[in-house]
């Protein structure tokens, strides 16, 4: 099972396909869940506090707008876990977490420069294209390792524990 970064990071279709073919999608939804269900935070609506754009400094300098760094504080940790990625070009409408194109440019760049397998596909505009879209994605997902090596499982557990302590 590979951890697959998807772009758009909140896509139903991509998250579903990745999971359907036995991998773990890295999505914004899980990041948001971590934020909004944390009782120690009270910064509605999505509990991003002024501290988060500071965490985003890891990915972009202070001169980069706060909205970009705030979004990167959610997306950056996912990119760090990325083992493979599917990037959809020209997705239809894009708001909210993916509503800022500067963030999206930076996100895609960081994923591409990571050196992991990346599939770049176009968003389908017809049934014909939808078939190619699904086929390409499925072929890509099937080419990824199914089983997670044992040592990574241990690592993951450790990192989860670390997160808890934070």
């Amino acid at each position, binding site marked *: 099972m590979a951890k697959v970064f998807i772009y758009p990071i909140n896509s*139903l279709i991509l*998250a579903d396909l990745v999971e359907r073919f036995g991998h773990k999608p890295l999505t914004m939804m899980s990041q948001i*869940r971590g934020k909004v269900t944390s009782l120690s935070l009270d910064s*509605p609506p999505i509990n991003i506090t002024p501290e988060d754009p500071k965490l985003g400094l890891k990915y972009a300098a202070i001169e980069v707008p706060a909205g970009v760094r705030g979004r990167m504080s959610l997306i950056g940790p996912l990119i760090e876990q990325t083992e493979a990625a599917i990037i959809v070009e020209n997705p239809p409408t894009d708001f909210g*977490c993916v509503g800022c194109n500067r963030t999206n440019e930076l996100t895609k760049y960081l994923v591409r420069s990571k050196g992991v397998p990346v599939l770049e596909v176009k968003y389908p505009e017809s049934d014909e294209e939808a*078939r190619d879209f*699904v086929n390409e994605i499925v072929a890509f997902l099937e080419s990824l390792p199914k089983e997670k090596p044992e040592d990574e499982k241990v690592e993951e557990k450790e990192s989860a524990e670390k997160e808890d302590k934070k």
Partner: protein
Amino acid sequence: MTETKKEEITKYIVISSDKVLPSDAAMKIYESEFPVTVKETCFGLIVSGAKDDVETLVEKIRQLDKNHIFVKDRGFPPGDERRCRASRGGGPRPGFHFLREEVEMLPAIGAALDELEEKECLMEKSKTKCRLKTSDLEKVIEEELAR
């Protein structure tokens, strides 16, 4: 990423099926023993509850029509005030528009998944060199013509 002891999760089940209605799927969940919260929406269902319960249930629902039922995580629990239209003062939450766009593409994605499955099935069958059943052939022809 906070791993709580009893992790609560929420999933969207988006139903793009001719066979299964959101209400059927909801009924299936009500009938089950799992203590989860279900909310019917125009796209399908939002299921919320303990991680294991939700995952098991969602998989069951998906199997009702697996190529036409889609699942994704949702950050917010259902009816969360921070996202609720009424308390936000009108205007849907930002993710709504994107979901709506994607939902329009689901019939095509579902058809592609059907086709993929059939191809695999055909390949398996061709290995055994058996003839295609006429009913299956008829289905393939119909689908080809319908394109």
